[in-house]
């Protein structure tokens, strides 16, 4: 049975949900919140999305998409272009290869896994940034950011799970 045009369009629209979500989260993470000290340690929303979708629906988030989302984040945040793209690609590869460890297990395990990934990402960004400016940078903002990102992960993961159940259960 061939799907009708409407069905195919519907499926295509659902297929791009994680990618669009990625772009939206990049934009959301650049909003100025006017909270003292928040800017440098704003939670990395995009990292959460890439980690979550790479574990649950890697088919909907190709390496090219992840690369482009990372690049957009770099450009809008003002980081050296390619840095987030690199980190997010690594996170995707790791999450896809370790997906079986997390799928169907308790959320606590996923949260732990994400905490480690967030910390490792912060370390890579810190090391690359330091190399980029040829200066030893204070790693503390990166640590704070990783902590903030890990702390907020359950909220976004809950939202992603809801999206996955409501929007993507048929694709």
């Amino acid at each position: 049975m061939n799907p009708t045009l409407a069905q195919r369009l519907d499926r295509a629209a659902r297929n791009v949900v994680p990618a669009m979500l990625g772009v939206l989260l990049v934009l959301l993470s650049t909003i100025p919140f006017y909270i003292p000290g928040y800017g440098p340690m704003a939670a990395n929303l995009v990292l959460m999305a890439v980690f979550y979708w790479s574990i649950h629906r890697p088919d909907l988030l190709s390496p090219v998409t992840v690369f482009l989302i990372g690049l957009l984040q770099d450009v809008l945040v003002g980081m050296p272009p390619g840095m987030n793209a690199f980190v997010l690609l690594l996170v995707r590869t790791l999450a896809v290869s370790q997906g079986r460890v997390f799928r169907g297990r308790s959320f606590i395990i996923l949260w732990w896994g994400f905490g480690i990934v967030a910390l490792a990402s912060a370390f890579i960004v810190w090391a690359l940034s330091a190399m980029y400016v040829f200066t030893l940078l204070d790693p503390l903002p990166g640590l704070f950011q990783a902590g903030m990102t890990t702390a907020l992960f359950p909220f976004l993961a809950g939202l992603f799970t809801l999206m996955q159940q409501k929007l993507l259960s048929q694709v």
Partner: protein
Amino acid sequence: MKPRGGSSVLRLALPIKVLIQRFAFLFLILAAFALMLLSKAETSAIEKVSNVVVDIFAPLMDGLSQPAAAISDAVSAVRQLANIHAENDRLRRENARLLAWQETSRRLMAQNQALMSLLEYKPDPRAKYIAARVIGDSGGAFVRSMLINSGRRDGLTKGQAAMTGHGLAGRVTSAGLRSARILLITDINSRVPVIVQASRDRAILAGDNSQLPRLVFLPSNASVNSGDIVVTSGHGGIFPAGLPIGRIIRSDDGVVRVNPFVRFEKLEFVRVIDYASVLPETSGQGGPHEVALE
């Protein structure tokens, strides 16, 4: 798992698909590194492309940042309401003090004018201001920059100073058509030629990603004290001289830092100073324009 008989095409296709995926990953990783290196080499092509991308997303960011600003304004309005009496009292006292200052200032201005005409002194050209709204706060742990919603079409160009009512916030590092990036004076890449107002000692204000940028290349015999005001020196010809930056903080380990007047977390609007366009034609070539500025 052995493929049984059947199509040899399928047997070949699968490894090739895997191979392509592997290569795609490697290729993308290499591309990311190549981009980082290229941008380090300051290729203007990358900057141009970034500007176009930021321009595309600027209207969206503009829209998204407005509710956040509205909420922030509402919160501070409520907070102000709570201590409106104390605030009123403080303002009344300040007003009385400022009125006295206004008198002094008027007298000095008249005197200054008279002396200037005696000396046939040529004043600095008047700078033009461009107001802009902050639409993007840096979400990076190791960068201190902001996006604003004005760009080349409003007269912005690279290098211009961005001010608030309190003092210098940063400078324009890249300008798209309708958006621009401001590198804050606290960023590790920021260097601003400054002068200590009281002692006239020159130095460079160097950001280090902390809240308090450092004062470097200060003469060893400089006599600076905590609380001294630091202003731009105007050397380099991009910034006008005398823009207020902050007050000196001397720490015990001998490092001299500056506490900026600008509260970066509250930065909602900036004024970009278009100064170079009103400067008299200079021969350029990166030479010092001190004569024109002092």
